[in-house]
């Protein structure tokens, strides 16, 4: 009973997600709610504002620079966390072995 119960739950979840996906607007429609004035502003004014023809780099570097900055913080935190988990108490261990 338990063997069939868990896949049934996930199939039900998949069905619910499919039904909700059917209500979304179609992919690639230019009239989508996601194609709002923000994207138009970025494409029209990227060259004037930032002298950067690559719009994705313009968004990353200028319009949302603080986002990229905090992402550098995330990467730094991950490096420090991995190093401190893997060899945080290396000194203590070597002292004990002596």
């Amino acid at each position, binding site marked *: 009973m338990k063997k069939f119960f868990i896949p049934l739950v996930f199939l039900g979840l998949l069905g619910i997600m499919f039904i909700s996906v059917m209500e979304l607007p179609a992919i690639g429609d230019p009239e989508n709610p996601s194609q709002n004035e923000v994207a138009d502003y970025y494409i029209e004014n990227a060259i004037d*504002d930032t002298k950067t023809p690559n719009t*994705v*780099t313009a968004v990353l570097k200028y319009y949302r*620079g603080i986002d990229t900055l905090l992402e550098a913080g995330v990467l730094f935190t991950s490096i420090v966390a991995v*190093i401190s988990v893997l060899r945080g108490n290396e000194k203590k261990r070597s002292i004990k072995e002596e």
Partner: protein
Amino acid sequence: MDDLIVKTIIRIVTPFIYLYGTYIILNASASPGGSFAGGAIMGSAIVLYTIVFGLAKAEKKVPDRLGKLKREVLLCFILMAFVVVFMGYDVLQLREAGAYQIAYGEKVQVEMLSLVNMGIAFKVAVTLISLFHVFIKEDH
């Protein structure tokens, strides 16, 4: 990995991977790619070198002083923070002052040596290399 063919091929190919990564970082503002992709390519070159030639030789190329230099690295990140803030600060006010207005048909002077691009690429490459070295050091 003690294989003569793999060692020779990697020794030949690695400079070209560096060159490709440098090209992508320098042209990040104008062409497809961007600084994230360039940093990932330059990091993966060193990861490839480490896999083939071993950790001892790779650490001569990239010294593993990150554990001892934590405070200095944090200062570097804060410096990059101020660079990003000052270069991206208040775009609209710059525009009202007429800083960057370009007419139709005019050629755009794309910035090649952008400090922020190089900072982002450096950050991604350093993260990849140091994570890989830390993980591979656990085996020994």
